């Protein structure tokens, strides 16, 4: 059998995750539909006044994206745990942290990236200008990988736990606050004519920090859960 390098293993895992998810299209589509539905509820709740909606748009879209990204987190490790492949990953010679990082990347590709692509359509419904739409996409592109990485910690901690779904949201949503603030803040700051360099730098900093530390924490959490 051909021997794979570290990155070969990660790439193989990534391919596996994506192909498994694409065979069950509902897994990819449900969070996306959820995103659209939640964002569409806000105008119904607060009224159709366009000035108000425009003002709220970045925050509403970002909060909806947070919730949608969280929706699919629970399955990040649950199916692999159920069929035992997670234990094989934990036993394999490849560091578990790298495998976890590959899974988080897959989660971003399958749930974060579709949100990035869908966001401008919803943004148009809220009356955002094309410049704001671009910035919204950029912040989502920088922010959603962080959500996947931080979320993987929560998914690992709540693996096989009673009421994991609700618990996961209670654990993870407070940790998402910085991403929400800088993500939605960038769009608002630009609309107010302020620079957004600081917001984007901080979003990127959060991403770098979580790329380094989240897989470590997730790995430890998985080892605790698998004991």
């Amino acid at each position, binding site marked *: 059998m051909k021997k794979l390098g570290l990155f070969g293993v990660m790439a193989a895992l990534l391919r596996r995750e994506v192909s498994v998810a694409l065979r069950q299209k509902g897994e990819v589509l449900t969070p996306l539909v959820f995103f659209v539905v939640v964002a569409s509820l806000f105008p119904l709740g607060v009224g159709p006044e366009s000035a108000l909606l425009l003002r709220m748009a970045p925050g509403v879209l970002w909060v909806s994206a947070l919730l949608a990204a969280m929706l699919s987190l629970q399955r990040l490790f649950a199916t692999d745990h159920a069929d035992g492949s997670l234990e094989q990953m934990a036993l394999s010679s490849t560091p578990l942290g790298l495998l976890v990082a590959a899974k988080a990347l897959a989660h971003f590709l399958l749930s974060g990236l579709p949100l990035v692509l869908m966001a401008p359509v919803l943004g148009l419904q809220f009356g955002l200008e094309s410049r704001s739409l671009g910035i919204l996409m950029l912040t989502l592109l920088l922010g959603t990988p962080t959500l996947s990485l931080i979320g993987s910690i929560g998914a690992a901690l709540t693996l096989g736990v009673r009421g994991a779904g609700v618990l996961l949201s209670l654990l993870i949503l*407070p*940790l998402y606050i910085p991403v929400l*603030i800088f993500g939605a803040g960038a769009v608002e700051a630009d609309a107010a004519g302020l620079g957004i360099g600081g917001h984007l730098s901080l979003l990127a900093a959060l991403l770098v920090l979580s790329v380094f530390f989240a897989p470590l924490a997730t790995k430890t959490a998985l080892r605790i859960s698998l004991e």
Partner: protein
Amino acid sequence: MNTQTIHWFKFSSPQNFYFLAGRMWPWFAVLATVLAAVALWIGLVMAPVDAQQGQGYRIIFVHVPAASLSMLVYLVMAGWAGFGLAFNTRLSGMMASALAPTGALLAFLSLATGSLWGKPMWGTWWVWDARLTSSLILLFLYLGFIALQSSIDDPRRADKACALLALVGAVNIPIIYGSVYWWNTLHQGASVTVKGASIAPAMLWGMGLMTVAFWMYAITMALVRVRAIILDRERHTEWVKHAVE
């Protein structure tokens, strides 16, 4: 065996710590009561009426200690959690979970007293001020810890998972606080701040003593709670059967 050495790790055994905590907590309880009584007397009787805020300011004698301690308790909790993960000691996890409800209570108390104070002073129960918001988030972090603890049946696994969560939370708290301050300045500029002249010595004494009283209270509660946790987890052992008789 050398009898001269002190057995530092003697009390890391839950059994030994159970009896040590049993001897310690009444002292802390007495200290907490006496200090709180003195601090209340200073705060409610001796401290002068505030020039700008009238009598209403006196709630700070509860609010400030509760708010400061709610943050400190989280750090102590994360410290125990990290200790437990690093050294794999059973007692550390028990201490962390014994501290969590007290911390959550203090965070809630600081929010409740804050909004009671805010109504007459700011004319509103709640503003999305950076400090209020970050206290609220701290309360959420405590509640997450407690929820995770209670939903895992195996206590050892619960301890470890909660320890990791507490550490992740402790790493994130500065980031969350920083971003909340950034968010607040972006949205509404400088918010209401207390800009009294330098406060009277009696007020300072009242607050200081009350803070120490709250510390003693938190230690008392943690010790009492950890005793209950130890009994619960060690209920199969012989010594517990003797201890509860």
